[in-house]
């Protein structure tokens, strides 16, 4: 799907609004102010639209960053008192802390991958091995927030995972690949401890809902 498609569909709504402002313009009298009025209205409308869209975009980032701060505090309390909700109405809880020293990344991984929890942090895919344990542990996150750094991650870079009991496992990136979203092989169990990070690809796609996924696979190393 190209960017054209998006513009094609959503312009429909806007045209409707643009025409809606027209009737006041067409019977127009030759007075400067009243001729300008629709233009001013339109400009204001556009500014409001811009505010709405940009606000939404900033909100996505703000939520992603803020939630991680809240989770960070619930994480530090959790190691003494067991699992905790990062905020009272949260429907998830942190399960691991993922750090990539070379990229100065520190992320708190939440349980489950519902759209709501992914907005707050990377999600551990249910049914895959627990982070840091034997088998294939799969973590997914948004390409434009938490996992934006994946695009720069290369082979043999170090990833650290701390589980709920404070045990730290060290992983090294083995492989990077792009797969179709229907190809669930990255979720397949593995017979050795492995960490799989998945996000949407391409990173710069304008429209959300891409069909491809960027997959980073790391193997656990001793020490």
């Amino acid at each position, binding site marked *: 799907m190209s960017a054209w498609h998006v513009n094609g569909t*959503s312009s429909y709504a806007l045209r409707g609004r643009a025409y809606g402002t027209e009737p006041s313009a067409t019977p127009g009298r030759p007075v400067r102010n009243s001729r300008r009025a629709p233009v001013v209205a339109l400009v204001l409308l556009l500014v409001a639209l811009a505010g709405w869209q940009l606000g939404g975009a900033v909100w996505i980032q703000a939520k992603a960053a803020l939630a991680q701060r809240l989770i960070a505090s619930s994480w530090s309390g959790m190691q003494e008192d067991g699992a905790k909700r990062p905020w009272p109405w949260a429907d998830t809880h942190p399960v691991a802390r993922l750090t990539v020293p070379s990229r100065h990344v520190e992320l708190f991984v939440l349980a489950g991958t519902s759209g709501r929890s992914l907005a707050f942090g990377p999600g551990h895919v249910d049914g895959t091995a627990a982070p840091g344990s034997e088998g294939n542990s799969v973590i997914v996150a948004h390409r434009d927030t938490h996992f934006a750094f994946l695009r720069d991650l290369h082979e043999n870079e170090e990833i650290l995972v701390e589980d709920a009991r404070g045990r730290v496992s060290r992983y090294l990136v083995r492989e990077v690949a792009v797969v179709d979203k229907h190809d669930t092989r990255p979720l397949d169990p593995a017979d050795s401890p492995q960490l799989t990070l998945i996000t949407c690809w391409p990173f710069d796609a304008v429209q959300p809902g891409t069909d491809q996924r960027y997959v980073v696979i790391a193997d656990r190393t001793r020490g």
Partner: protein
Amino acid sequence: MAGKSGGYQGGLQSLRADFIELLGKAIVSGIAASVVFGLVALGLATSARAQSKPNDARTGTLLFRTGEAGAFAPAPKVETEVTIHVTGIVARTRVSQTFHNPGEDWVEGVYVFPLPENAAVDRLRLRIGERVIEGQVKEKEAARRIYAEAKREGKKAALVEQQRPNLFTNAVANIGPHEYVRVMIEYQQTLAIDNGEYRLRFPLAITPRYEPAGAAIPDEPKAIEAYQATVDSLGAPPATGPDPVLHPDYAPAGAGAVNPVAIGVVIDFGVPLAKVTSSYHDAWIEKDSGSRTVLYLKKEQEEADRDFELVWSPAGGSAPLAAAFLETRNGTDYALLLVMPPQPTAQEKAAIAPLPRETVFVIDTSGSMQGTSIQQAREALLTGLSTLTARDRFNVVEFNSSTRPMWPDALPATAENLQYARAWVSKLQANGGTEMAGALAFALNGRDTAGYLRQVIFMTDGAVGNEDHLFKLIAQRLGSTRLFTVGIGSAPNSHFMTKAALFGRGSFTYIGDLREVEEKMSKLFAKIESPVLKDVSIRWPDGTPVETYPARVPDLYLGEPVVVAAAHASLKGTIVVSGMRGNQPWSVALTPTAAEEPTGVGALWARARIASLMDELRLGADEALIRPAVVKVALEHHLVSRYTSLVAVDVTPTAPGGEKRSALVKTSAPRSMIAGELPQTDTAFTLQILLGLLALAAAGVGALIGRSIPAGGGEHAAQPAEGAR
């Protein structure tokens, strides 16, 4: 417990969250204008790089473990042929696995496959061309060494190992390019008998097991203590070589029949059969003039994605009420007894006034239950609720990553409470992990409600990897409660279900299809109303105590037989089985006759002994004591166990030496697992930035037009604004 504020309050919470989101948006919109210019640069850079391809990613390159980058080894394929021969209550099964290497390299194929939990695997044969090599049972490490050596020397070899009591691997070394290698595995098992029906199950699919991460999050301090105590006392899982295979490697959805299976069954029952049904597969069934019935699957090659089950019952009343089989091996007599207590008459039934029940339904709502499984479980639970009477008390507990009881304690089964429960159950969704310990600890709280028969009905697919921890938990906390397991889905972990029910002194019911729910649940509840035969004891020929499995015959519920395996120097003579039916003593005497050909009773006894020793290990016995005992029995009876494997090695090397590539054979995913997608992981961030900037630019253009051309129309301004929403 911990999850109690989630779920049914979800609607309210989401409203609140949405309101906060809206508020946030409004505030942020104000700030947005000031950051817009900063973002312009970013936005432009982003859109310029859109669709660029990271240099280290290869589109469509897949994540197959090959050792060298970019190399793709086609996985070996396995075709399975199963022949089952049933004589009386014993089935002997031959599983032929034909490995095919479609590639150009010499490979090693490793196939993970399930077998019934009580299978006594005693024979392995490797067939290469016309030659057949007989496998030998060895201690696990020794077998591994033999296999590794053969692999290095380029000899063909097969190694059958037990990973879990019902999960095995078969490794075949040195399969040449385009070559076929056939491995034949044989085992013996006793059949399940219930309500006059004989049930034979051949597992075909493996549900991936969930390994709990840390402690579950139960609120109740008791539950935490119990769980923690279990974790502490067991310590780290026992290290026995490489980690057991928990998760098979599934073939991608839509790949077709990856590992086709053909099944044929011959039932030689001695008496004519009334009804033979293949529960989940279409099958041809041919009845012979005598007592022989032959069955084979209609589809010659069936996908191994759901278990095979065959149910039959002997024609009207001809079912034997007692039978004994005897085998003499190396100076020891092995006997297998089957005694079916007579059904109580209506009069007797009335005499045994059933106690009111306190029933706790525990339902697994973990991710692995998604799809038809959760539907079946909900349906089963609703059926269970409908059997309750106003005298009974009940509660419902849901668990996935955490445990969530409907009420803190059981409440009377009033119409009102039942109505509430039905609504609560209907809303259950499958999602999250499988932290069973918390739910078990809650249900088995050690409390006893006086005057009530306490039952826990546990509905799950048993997709857990920490079975042993759970068994210990059940054994420790059972008290006078009975635990009944109900297996849900197309491939439940029946080892867990059977053992959990055994430790829980209850029974295991398997529901493989939505249509069976009502029938099977009603049967279960009819059965567990009250035991039919209590205090069962057996007197052996010379009056001395005999080593039997089970060591103590449990109370029998309606339709359940006594099945006992025994070994002693001499068992020839009269055996008396006695017990209490209601308040009447009851007994039956039988004399086993030695069969002319070996019946495999010895192997069954040995398998039961190994299972019992492994149970002791689960309950905390020292592995240093258990291991030699298991090895001794296993070697004597040629059985595969946790500590012994079967290995077969060809004499002549056929493959060039050196490092070989190893590949795990793909396993069909269980049917109930929905073929999924990878989660969607992008937001509208880029789109919104772009649209925002477009709108802003359009506004700028509009403002310019409005200033320079006083008569400017809206049409111009609207044009560049296309795309805004």
